[in-house]
């Protein structure tokens, strides 16, 4: 039987990478401070000792070069994992990501495989300000050609990472710093959990009901899952039963799971740490709107997200723009009071 033990999300990701590297010698890692340091967020901890600098390669601060190198190496038959510390830094090498990594397979008529995993940290909540606190998964999910994976806990992270490395397509794997289990950052309990030693995969595009409920559905992902679970506990005390749906991957998106849950509860709150406009919350709301013939809503859809401002540094400002547990509670309460307008299906 397989043993399980409690791991942090960082440890689970590093374990998945290590096991896949043992299984397949085409897999290697490149990135800044991923060697001795083990990655600033611990996602490659211990791998240098096991695999040496030929397969765990610290790079210069040359993102265009090393991310483009990952694309080229993948086209030639290797399976690179490239880490760029913070998603906020992707701008400097965006061309290699969204014009090449994401498009070459398509432009080659499917004749090129690009099994690249790009890993990066997302999210705020600790006053790292506007250039180090974004989520941006909506940006990458918006542009075709990248699978976008955003786990909320260690168990999922390991299975999704193993799946990502085995996928023949480019995958962007984004981990929220606040749930990595870092010894230097406060986090919401729940992201460190039991993880089997043995390898396993979790298929992309399969959302998970992490808490069953009957009154409303909270669709969310990443650290917001932990916040939503705390909110659901609070709501329970007030007699409100919230179902929490963890999307786990944005591309592919488990639309069926969203519709199924909303059909059951009749109310939808989308809770997101990305920007409000043109993002995840709009996508999920549109999905439900397009299916109002089969999904009857008891109240208009509610969206919680960063209100279209960069993430401010100062603590009270940051707390104000990033949705918190109490905001999820308040939005859920409002949703319970809300009624659809006259003439709409009730």
């Amino acid at each position: 039987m397989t043993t399980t033990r409690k791991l942090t999300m960082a440890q689970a990701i590093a374990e998945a990478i290590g096991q896949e590297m043992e299984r397949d010698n085409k897999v290697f890692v490149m990135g800044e401070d991923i060697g001795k340091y083990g990655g600033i967020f611990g996602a490659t901890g211990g791998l240098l000792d096991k695999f040496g600098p030929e397969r765990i390669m610290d790079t210069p601060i040359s993102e265009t070069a090393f991310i483009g190198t990952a694309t080229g190496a993948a086209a030639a038959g290797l399976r690179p994992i490239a880490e760029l510390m913070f998603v906020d830094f992707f701008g400097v090498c965006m061309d290699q990501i969204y014009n090449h990594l994401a498009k070459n397979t398509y432009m080659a008529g499917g004749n090129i495989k690009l099994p690249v995993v790009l890993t990066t940290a997302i999210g705020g909540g600790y006053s790292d300000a506007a250039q180090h606190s974004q989520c941006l998964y909506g940006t990458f999910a918006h542009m075709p050609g990248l699978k976008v994976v955003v786990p909320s806990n260690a168990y999922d992270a390991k299975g999704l990472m193993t799946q990502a490395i085995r996928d023949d397509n480019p995958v962007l794997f984004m981990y929220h710093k606040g749930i990595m289990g870092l010894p230097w950052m406060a986090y919401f309990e729940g992201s460190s959990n039991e993880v089997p030693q043995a390898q396993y995969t979790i298929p992309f595009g399969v959302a998970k009901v992490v808490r069953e409920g009957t009154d409303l559905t909270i669709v969310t992902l990443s650290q917001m899952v932990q916040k939503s679970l705390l909110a659901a506990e609070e709501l329970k005390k007030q007699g409100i039963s919230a179902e929490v749906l963890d999307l786990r991957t944005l591309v592919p998106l488990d639309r069926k799971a969203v519709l199924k849950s909303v059909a059951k509860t009749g109310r939808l709150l989308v809770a997101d740490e990305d920007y409000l406009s043109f993002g995840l919350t709009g996508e999920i709301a549109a999905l439900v709107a397009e299916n109002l013939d089969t999904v009857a809503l008891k109240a208009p859809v509610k969206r919680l997200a960063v209100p279209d401002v960069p993430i401010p540094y100062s603590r009270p400002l940051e707390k104000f723009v990033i949705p918190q547990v109490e905001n999820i509670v308040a939005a859920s309460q409002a949703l319970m009071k809300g009624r659809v307008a006259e003439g709409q299906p009730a």
Partner: protein
Amino acid sequence: MQANKEKLLWMYEKMVEIRNYEETMASVYLEGKLPPNIQQGLAFDIGSGPVPGEMHLAAGQEPVAVGICAHLKQEDTVVGTHRPHHFAIAKGVPLTPMTAEMFGKVTGLGKGKGGHMHLFDPVHKFSCSGLIGASLPPACGAGLAAKKMGKDWVAVAFFGEGAANQGAVHESLNLAALWQLPVIFVCEDNKWAISVPKTSATSIEWVADRASAYGMPGIKVAHNDAVEVYEAVAPAIARARSGKGPSLIEVKTDRYLGHFQGDPEVYRPKDEVANLRKNDPIPKLATQLKSAGQMTDAEEAAIVARARQRVTDAFAFARKSDYPAPQEALQHVFA
């Protein structure tokens, strides 16, 4: 060009002020981040305390900032890095709003919105960025503006030896040389880019050797010494002011602390850290000044006291300032 007594004393005082600032910040930064967090299973809570977020300190690197800024006037532009305090202080950014910014207070340079890596002072023409290599393009812009407006202003872009391998650096060097912009590019080689040593990141020993590839002078400063920096860069400043174009300077310096406060420094040999302060440029300059009869013990004491007082006042101001109201987060996306 040799530094006169006035410049030497200015550089000494600024270095003392920077060091005192960084050491004060190092201890204030830890407030609220250690116990009781340790009992909660955290070694360190980066988000708590009066100064949250990441903190990169430049103790040890003072000579680079003061040796260059001693040549500058208020109209000259300086673009710093994610490790910005020494540059900001040397450029004349006032300590009180700068410190208040790091406390996230409404009295800060950016009303609490920017924080430590994002200090903007349009009056003293200082800015910086948390993105590596991002200091060079805006310095080219400031240089272009000076040229178009017929001013003798210069722009200085500071960047680390790690940043020297970033695309934006190479593009900027070429552009500045091509357009003969009055820009001084200053590579601060503290040997480490977080955990990656220069030897594993750069294929040559001196970044300044790249200057010839772009068609500009390259200047090497081998010691972490303010006077040496001051004298070595003088021709570059004169060149830029007289419309003859950019220069690339590299200074060898030392990072005394971790990459950021709380960095376990697992990558750095312990004896390296222990030995760094043996060549501390601040007492060294004091000794030089005194043996040349340019500073008395009493003058030294007065300089140290003044610098300390400014730092103390700045931290006191920051502590007692108010936080912005939460709704202010919604302002200033558009001016």
